């Protein structure tokens, strides 16, 4: 299938205008010895129906039936209101470029402004950008930003931070002379604050804290921020499950200086890990060091309200090697989905949503740990995920439950060798009571035998 729109006549006429006889001549500036002398060795073109069939065939190689899944760990299954898909598939949103020409991009700029406002309201911060790639690179950008502000070599990150986020931070900072130190967790599943106290010193630029953390445990961000500030370090809050912002005290209220995270929960499908939606907000003092695009309000020559991309001098296309980040294209369409999602749920809906996540997870935690042979691994307060431990290897549990088309959660041993037999179970509002009971029964059957 070709998507070009020229007829043979058009081509002839255009070649005539240009003054050449054949399109090959257009490539005369390319030296002959590097020209490709053969066809590309890729499959021949498919028509639309053939392409469609090919992909349905590919998709069918995934598991044929959607399993009853309790997977979370930075990617969450939530219900997506119909209006999100409907509105976000409009060509006027899908097919424009980045809104550099403000006069013909007011739709995008306006909704970025609304997104920024809601991110500020949710995180308790002064300013927000228009999005980053995802939660992991957001965490890395926040670390780089704190280092630009503080100019001190050490960054403390907890082991309760998503393991992939920790890895991405390592990758991003490797060549900049930063020292990334990890802080362990205690029996509650929270960051070990006594270890944090020991590691914090005057050389520390920032302390990172994810809450709810990778174990689903709610951290005491207030205490962690206070400790950070006492050592003249910044407090970076990472939110990997953004629905929690609907009910938990905002990171800003708890002393965070920079808030970043993953907003996939706001109306973005699981999509095998991407595209997702990184977000970032901070206190206004740090505006000049803030990465990413920002929409700002202004007026046109007639005095009408309008929006523009502003403070661009922070960005790579102007400041080049001294830019606050190299980020350029980011996740605008995902940001649009999140904006629609948040406006549909609204003030009351956000709280109800978070409340249901807490209630379902709490119920699931209770019925599972009531089973003989299943115990809670950590004592801390949980949001919509929790860690349980059994005598069996989690891998084995996964294999057994797979036969019943149930996916019980993520095995933690790969990331935490000390957490043998531990699994991370996620229960969002989409899981019904009967789903949770089915999971519990499956565990009971398995552990009986």
């Amino acid at each position, binding site marked *: 299938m070709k998507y070009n729109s020229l007829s043979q006549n058009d081509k002839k006429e255009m070649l005539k205008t240009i003054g050449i006889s054949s399109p090959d001549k257009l490539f005369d500036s390319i030296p002959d010895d590097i020209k490709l002398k053969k066809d590309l060795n890729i499959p021949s073109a498919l028509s639309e129906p053939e392409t469609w069939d090919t992909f349905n065939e590919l998709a069918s190689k995934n598991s044929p039936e959607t399993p009853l899944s309790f997977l979370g760990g930075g990617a969450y299954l939530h219900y997506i209101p119909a209006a999100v898909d409907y509105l976000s598939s409009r060509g006027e949103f899908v097919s424009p470029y980045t809104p550099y020409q403000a006069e013909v991009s007011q739709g995008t700029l306006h909704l970025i402004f609304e997104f920024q406002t809601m991110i500020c309201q949710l995180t308790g911060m002064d300013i927000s950008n228009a999005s980053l790639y995802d939660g992991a690179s957001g965490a890395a950008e926040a670390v780089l930003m704190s280092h630009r502000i503080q100019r001190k070599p050490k960054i403390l990150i907890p082991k309760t931070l998503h393991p992939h986020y920790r890895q991405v931070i390592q990758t991003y900072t490797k060549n900049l002379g930063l020292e990334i130190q990890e802080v362990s967790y205690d029996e509650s599943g929270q960051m070990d604050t006594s270890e944090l106290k020991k590691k914090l010193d005057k050389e520390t630029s920032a302390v990172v804290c994810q809450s709810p953390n990778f174990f689903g445990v709610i951290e005491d961000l207030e205490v962690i921020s206070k400790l950070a500030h006492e050592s003249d370090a910044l407090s970076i809050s990472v939110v990997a499950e953004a629905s929690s912002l609907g009910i938990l005290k905002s990171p800003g209220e708890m002393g965070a200086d920079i808030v970043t995270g993953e907003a996939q929960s706001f109306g973005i499908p699981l999509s095998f890990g991407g595209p997702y939606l990184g977000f970032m907000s901070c206190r206004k003092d740090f505006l*000049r060091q803030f990465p990413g695009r920002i929409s700002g309000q202004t007026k046109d020559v007639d005095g009408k309200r309008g929006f523009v991309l502003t403070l661009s*001098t922070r960005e790579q296309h*102007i*400041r080049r090697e*001294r830019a606050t980040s190299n980020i350029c294209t980011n996740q605008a369409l995902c940001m649009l989905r999140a904006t629609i999602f948040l406006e549909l749920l609204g003030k009351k809906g956000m709280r109800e949503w978070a409340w249901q996540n807490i209630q379902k997870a709490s119920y699931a935690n209770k019925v599972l740990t009531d089973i003989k042979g299943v115990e809670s691994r950590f004592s801390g307060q949980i949001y919509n995920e929790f860690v349980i431990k059994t005598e069996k290897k989690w891998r084995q549990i996964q294999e057994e439950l797979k036969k019943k088309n149930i996916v019980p959660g993520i095995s933690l041993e790969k990331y935490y060798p000390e957490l043998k037999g531990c699994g991370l179970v996620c229960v969002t509002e989409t899981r019904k009571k009967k789903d949770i009971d089915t999971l519990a029964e499956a565990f009971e059957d398995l552990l009986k035998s």
Partner: protein
Amino acid sequence: MYPDDFHYTKDHEWIQVKGDEATVGITDFAQSQMGDVVYVELPKVGDELDAHQTFGVVESVKAVSDVFSPVAGKVTQVNEGLNDDPEVLNKDPHSKGWIIKLKVKDKSELEELMSASEYEKYLEGLEE
């Protein structure tokens, strides 16, 4: 246009010396090239500067430009007014739009700078 009692650099800064103290800013040509100035990053009072050292940044909507110290010296004052009112740099670059005051270390360094007429000639060369 360009005051005779100023000295000028090729990077379009001006310096006016009175006794040991000098005032430094950017020239009218510089501000007109930048367009609407939106932000000025100032040094701290007490900073020691070498000649040609960057001491600040001037930002317009679409451009960023370093500002260099024409001579060596110690910063004695910065124009805080630029924080709230950066457009002064556009409106009055040679007076109210001054950026820093310096205690000059070595006045002989001024000899390497251009006079007003030399600077104007230099600008003519750039226009071509």
